[in-house]
């Protein structure tokens, strides 16, 4: 075992990369849940985004096209969920599971000719002198734009929810859909929009995994990150700021266990590999007492009877 082989600068740098897909997906789901909808299909939308982004990037050579269409693919897939739960009034838990199973099958089918290919690389964002700073530059300022986009989205979502009229309306719908309906707000329409946004963010996060984090396409490669993103929303008490904290924490656990594996720690690889999942469970247990941030209408079906 050689712990000194772990470079803290690289650790932080790879932490930011590992955390980004998680952050994107969790932010999307946060908006969906604040609108009162529980979409358990994050994993399915992520993996679909991963495969679509990968295929488009390989075919066009442009990672940006890949990311864009991955977001579109995630959003399109999420519309199936929206249709089921908002129009056909199906159970949200079952529909979310269906979405995940469907997404896993769809992605395996689409991606079967792309296994083992290396995608064109995603360029780093040129931050000029910042990137040249010793240590900090390498750790924080030499990433691609998606890393910073995810962080910017956190602020944007916070601002949207807390400071804008539309955000207030979205929260109101999630809090009490009957009251929102009585005041004349279009509950179903607002939820459709939130679900689409969540799908796009999950798709983007998925593409980040297949294009940057790994970068390769393998079947089932999201390996539960979508589910961890769901847990993260609970962990964060439905607050965007805490989602960042959580995503970086989980990212840290993931990176650390990989580094420990590489360093040859005497713990069996399998146990290290299960660390992110075990940490998720522990985090859920700790945070479950505090349900104060949970939107009151979360997961409840809405049907305007009058």
């Amino acid at each position, binding site marked *: 075992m050689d712990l000194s082989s772990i470079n803290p600068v690289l650790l932080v740098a790879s932490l930011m990369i590992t955390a980004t897909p998680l952050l994107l997906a969790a932010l999307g789901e946060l908006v969906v849940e604040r609108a009162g909808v529980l979409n358990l299909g994050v994993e399915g939308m992520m993996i679909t985004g991963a495969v679509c982004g990968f295929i488009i990037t390989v075919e066009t050579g442009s990672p940006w096209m890949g990311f864009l269409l991955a977001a579109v693919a995630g959003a399109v897939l999420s519309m199936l969920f929206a249709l089921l739960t908002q129009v*056909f009034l199906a159970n949200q*838990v*079952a529909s979310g599971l269906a979405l995940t199973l469907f997404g896993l099958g769809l992605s395996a089918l689409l991606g079967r000719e792309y296994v083992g290919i290396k995608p064109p690389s995603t360029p780093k964002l040129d931050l000029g002198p910042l990137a040249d700073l010793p240590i900090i530059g390498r750790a924080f300022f030499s990433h691609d734009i998606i890393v910073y986009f995810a962080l910017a989205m956190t602020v944007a979502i916070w601002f949207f929810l807390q400071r804008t009229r539309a955000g207030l309306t979205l929260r109101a719908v999630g809090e009490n859909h009957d009251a929102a309906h009585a005041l004349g707000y279009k509950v179903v329409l607002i939820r459709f929009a939130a679900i689409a946004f969540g799908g796009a963010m999950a798709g983007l996060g998925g593409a980040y995994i297949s294009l940057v984090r790994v970068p390769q396409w393998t079947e089932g490669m999201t390996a539960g990150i979508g589910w961890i993103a*769901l847990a993260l929303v609970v962990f964060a008490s439905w607050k965007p700021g805490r989602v960042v904290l959580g995503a970086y924490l989980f990212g840290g656990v993931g990176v650390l266990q990989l580094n420990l594996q590489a360093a040859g720690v005497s713990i069996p690889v399998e146990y290290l590999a299960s660390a992110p999942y075990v940490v998720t*469970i522990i985090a859920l247990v700790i945070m479950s*007492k505090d349900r104060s941030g949970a939107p009151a209408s979360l997961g409840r079906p809405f049907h305007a009877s009058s």
Partner: protein
Amino acid sequence: MLKIEKRASPSKTWNWAAPIMAVALTMIVGGALFGLLGVNPFQAIAKIFYEPLFGEYAFYYRPQLMIKAAPLVLIAIGLSMGFRAGIWNIGAEGQYIMGALSGAGLALALYPMELPILLPLMVIAGALGGMLWGLIPGYLKVKFGTNEILVSLMLVYVAEQILASMALGLMKNPEGMGFPGSRNLQQYPSAHNAEIFAGSGMHWGVAAALIAVIFAYVMLTRHMFGFQLRLSGIAPRAAKFAGVDPGRMILICMGLSGALAGMAGLFEIAGPAGQVSIDFNVGYGFTAIIVAFLGRLNPIGILLAGLLLAITYVGGEITQSQMGLPLAAIQLFQGMLLFFLLAMDMLTNYRFRRSTKEAV
């Protein structure tokens, strides 16, 4: 303009027509998909649904159906109990693995001792292993209010890692010349879950699945526990008012579904699969969720749905080998089935009505 309105009472007709409609729609849309993949849709659909039952080689495929349907039905029966009560155990895949490992571990520890009651002991060990794995999310939910969906799912990934660790380490066959995987239990007579009638596909897991169906049916229709289960799901406050302890209900449902999934895993590892290997689990725990819903959470329905999904598995393998249809297409097919079912389901509780005149 069409309007959606809630029915005064749930429609009994649609309760059973919805799954049939869903299957039909899946065939149509799935067929179209096969067409896009360059496969003759009619031939593919026929191969998937006809060949395993009545085709030239049906004598070979029919036992396969039993083998595939048994774990699906066994797991789905357990899951349906929880789903009815609003308890979402979606980590059956993990409980299936842990049950298999517990039972197989017992057998491997005792190898090569021949013991007539070894298989029954393994079944108990398997049930216990699955039960304990299922009780973790159950206990955490009762004690801390932790979401059982996420915890049970996380535990699937943990169980997969444990499986890998066992196949590569502790349970590795010492005479396996370094290859991963344990001894083959099929070659250990006391531990082998052999066919009850040779060539029928009918192993003890099939018997257990049938018993579970009957047991669940009687429980749900005649016993107070079944009533409380249904009550907890459709009106949790009323259940509490009636005197049902929600915590106890969670533990029973998680434990029971875990035990059944664990048993399914054990029957599989001691029979058709034979050994502990990295790729032992093939997603029965997840497909069983579809089976449970498609069977309307009703034991008889689950039996039929389990057979149907077994057909798609076997049929999928046939189309893969004969027509080059990728196996993932079947997975997609199964997901689609659940989608259509959920959509059709609405017709049980709601109906469309042509609205007279909108606005004035």
